[in-house]
Structure formats: C-alpha cells, structure tokens
C-alpha cells in the first residue's frame, strides 16, 4: 500500500472516480440515455421511449447490421487464416528475413485507414482488377487493416508456446502436417479465438477506409451511424451506436467464454 492514511486514500479515490466518470462512464451512459430519450431540451430527457430503436430496426439498420456482421466475419476469417499462416511460416525463415518480414506484416496497422482506402481506390478502379463499387473492396479494406492485429496476436501466442510439445511430437515420429494439425494449432487455439474476436470488433467499428470505398448497397453500421448524425438525426444515431456496442460486446464476451471453456480456466 502506497498511501496509508485513510483521508488521503479517499481523496485519491475521488480523483479516480472523477476522471473515470467524466472520461469513460459519462459517454457510455449518455449514449444509452439519448438512444432512449423521448424529447431532450433540458438537462435530462423529458421521457423515455424505445421509438428510436424500432425506427432504426424497421429502417436501414437491419441491412447495416447484416453488412457489418458479414464484412467482419469474412474479413476476420481471412485475416485469421493469413495471419496464422504467416506467423507459422515465419518460424521457418532465417533470423534476418524473419525480422524484416515480421515488420512488413505489421505495417498495415501503422498506415492511416483513409490512405488504405485511397490506395485500394487507386489500384482497383481499372480493368483487369476492377473492384471499385463491389462488396469485395470493402472486405479487402477491412482485411488489410486487421491483418496486422491477427498476425501480431498469433505471433505473440507462438512465442509463448513451449517448444517441448512440438519437439516431443517430432521425436515420436509425427510428420510436420500431423504435428501442425494435432499439436501446434490446438495449443494456439485460445490465441486464435482472441485474435478473431479482436479483429471482428475492429472491423465492426471501422470507418476511415469504409467511407472511402463502400458501394451504395453495402452500408456498414459506422457509415450509417455517420449519415444519420450528419443529417441531424442524432437520437437514431445513438440507438444504432448502442446496437453496434451491444453486438461487439456480445461477440467478445461469447468468444471469451469459448476460450475459457477450451482452456479449462
């Protein structure tokens, strides 16, 4: 214990409560409240209603939720395969090449998302690679942006893996493919699930690259939240944001449970 006297501890806790309340609690609480607000002209809303939710669900929200979930799932699945593949095959490289390639796989996370979108527009707007205006270009943008996170998570998992299991498997005569499928990948599973969950969450909230490339028929949740608030319909925007937050949290908690059960924790 750093601070022994009770009064000074209470002062510090009050400081914490103030910072936490203003910075983290208030925004979440206020989004929830405004998504349920009937009329809001004073300090507090005059009444509560679920009207905004029924409005957005009967409107464009259903399609936006679907677009976000499909994009998130496909981009995360592709990023998981490619990131795991890259992390596993990097172990077979020499030291210098491994460091260089490892750095290159991380670079997409450092480039601003708007520029990733711009690059895709410039590269894939002409035949033979004409993807501009298709759903695929949205998936590609999301895949590029989250691929570094998946690669990083899986690499971190591999680094923590004890090499003993794989060595024992090899010395017992397990072929590389068998060893990969029955030893390495099961041991990596918790990291794979965590990587998938994080990239799914990132994809659900992605805005910068999506606004650059999305076709009219494939409006994701963040884009439709932006167009609602830009039109001045901030209550509907808040309701849709709550739907996005709920979907993200359910997804993350669900995947966490699966991991916990799988590892017996």
């Amino acid at each position, binding site marked *: *214990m*750093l*601070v022994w006297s009770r009064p000074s501890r209470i002062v*510090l*806790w009050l400081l914490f409560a103030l910072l*936490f309340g203003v*910075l*983290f609690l*208030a*925004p*979440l609480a*206020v*989004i929830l409240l405004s998504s349920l607000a009937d009329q*809001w*002209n004073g*300090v507090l809303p005059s009444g509560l209603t679920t009207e905004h939710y029924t409005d957005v669900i009967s409107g464009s929200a259903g399609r936006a939720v679907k677009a976000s979930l499909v994009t998130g799932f496909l981009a995360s699945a592709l990023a998981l395969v*490619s*990131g795991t*593949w*890259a992390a596993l*095959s*990097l172990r*077979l*490289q020499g030291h210098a090449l491994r460091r260089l*390639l490892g750095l*290159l*796989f*991380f*670079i*997409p996370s*450092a*480039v*601003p*998302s*708007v*520029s*990733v979108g*711009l*690059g*895709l527009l*410039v*590269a894939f707007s002409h035949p033979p690679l004409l993807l501009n205006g298709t759903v695929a270009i949205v998936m590609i943008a999301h*895949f590029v942006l989250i*691929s570094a996170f998946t690669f990083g998570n899986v690499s971190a998992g591999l680094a923590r893996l004890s090499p003993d299991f794989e060595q024992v498997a090899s010395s017992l005569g397990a072929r*590389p493919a068998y060893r990969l499928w029955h030893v390495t990948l099961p041991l990596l599973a918790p990291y794979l699930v965590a990587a998938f969950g994080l990239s799914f969450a*990132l994809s*659900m*909230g992605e805005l*910068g690259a999506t*606004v*650059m490339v999305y076709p009219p028929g494939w409006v994701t949740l*963040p884009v439709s939240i*932006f167009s609602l*608030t830009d039109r001045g319909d*901030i209550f509907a*925007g808040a309701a849709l*944001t709550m739907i*996005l*937050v709920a979907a993200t949290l359910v997804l*993350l908690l669900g995947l966490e449970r699966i991991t916990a059960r799988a590892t017996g924790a």
Partner: protein
Amino acid sequence: MAEAVALCAPAIRREPGKFWIVPPAALLALLFFYPLALIARQAFLDDSGVANAAEIIRVLHSRFFLNALINTVTISVTATAGCLIVGLVLALILAFVPFPGSGFIARLIDTFIALPTFLVTLAFTFLYGSAGMLNSGLMEAFSLPLPPVDFLYSTWGVVLAEVTVYTPFILRPLLAAFSLVDRGQIEAASVHGARPFRIVRQVILPAAIPALIAGGSLCLLLTVNEFGIVLFIGAKGVITLPLLIYGKAIQESAYQVACVIAVVNIALSLGLFGLYRFAAGRLGV
C-alpha cells in the same frame, strides 16, 4: 529453363519450409503494398500520366495542407500528453491504492479499446454540445441567454475525445509494468518514512518509463491516424490530414491532391511507427 529447375530443386528439398511464407506475403503485397506504391506514383503523375512536380509543390505550399498538418501535429501531441497524464494517474491509483472492484474497473476501461472511436464524439455532443446537458444545466442554473461552454467544435473537443479513446492504450502497458514492481520495496521505503511522492518518483516512475515511452509513441501514431472522431465533430476549423484526404478524394474527386497528402501522412505515420517499434523493442515492452 530445365537447367534452372534442376538448379533450384536441391534447394527446395533441403529447406522445404522456406516457401510457405509466399502465399500470405503475396496476398499482402497485392492488397496493401501495391496500392501503397500506386499512391506514391499517382502523387507524382498528373491525370494524363506525365510526371508533374508542380502540383506537389503547389499542394505542399497550400494553406489547406499546412493548416491540416499543423492541426494534426498539435492535436496528436496534446492528446498524447493528456493520455500520458491521465493514464499515469489512473494506473497509479489502480495499482497502488486499489479499492474494491478496481480490477473490474480496469477491465472495463480496457474494453474501450474494442469500441468504435466515434462513440465518444457522439456522446460529447449530448454532454457538451450547445444544446447538451452541461450547457442546459448551466443556462438553467444561472439563467444565461447563451450556452456558456463552447469547446466541443474546436481542437479541444477533438483532444478530449482522443484522450478518452486512447488512454486505455497507455493504461494497459503501465498496469503490466506496475505489476512487476516489488511491493516489498515500497513497503520498506514507506516504513522508513519516505513520502508517497518520493516513492513514486524514485521507485515507481523508473519502472514505468519504458511503458510510458512505448505507450506514448503508440498514442502519437494512433492520434495522427485518427479519422472517426474528427469526422464526427465535423467542425469547419478542425481539419486533419486524414480528413483532408477524404475530402479531396471523395468530395472533390481530386485524386492527385489526395495522393500527395496521403504520401505525407503515410510518411509521418511510418516515422512514428518506427519510433514505437524502436522504443518497444529497445525497452522490452
């Protein structure tokens, strides 16, 4: 051709695993590095495909570009300083003056990493906007004719939103670093009469410096690249580089201008990424 195959074959047999890296690397090259190279190419060529440096010089000297650059750097540096201060205070209390439920609170703050950044801006509209809770409250309490609080649609609004969004990125490595600090050392120092400030300065801060440097450079990178917060605040005077790229490319269809700005933005980001990797690698975070 046959000769080349014959020459290659033994090498393949000797190290069969070497080539497994090719598929993911090729995918990344096609979908990421190739478009990135085209941005650079387009920045130097005009619409007819002729090399044209005049346009680059015009953009780099233009007022809109310089304003955006200054805004981006100011917001990024201020927000990072804010994140470091708030993160350090929160982490010190969470780690060394814990209270019931502090573990849960730390995890709650951590989930902010997974939430979309524009959520905070939208919430700030309701809290601090001209018709928001704070202004309505103050106007009612003091019967003011006009909303007194007016920082949201300025750089300060963006900075406060970014502090909220990016403090968790400082908190996470700091809490990890603090969990390694020897509690016995702190007890001993405090038994010998050292004041808490002195313990923080001489025992805890040295242990936190690697985490602060790595977290701070990550914050610089993320705030330079931030788009959602600035877009949602939508203030005319607060244009950053990513927002300018979006405006030029999508709203004005001026692709060459957008590419020139993107080259500057990407160079800035990669420089900060290098700083982060250097700090993180050097300090072992």
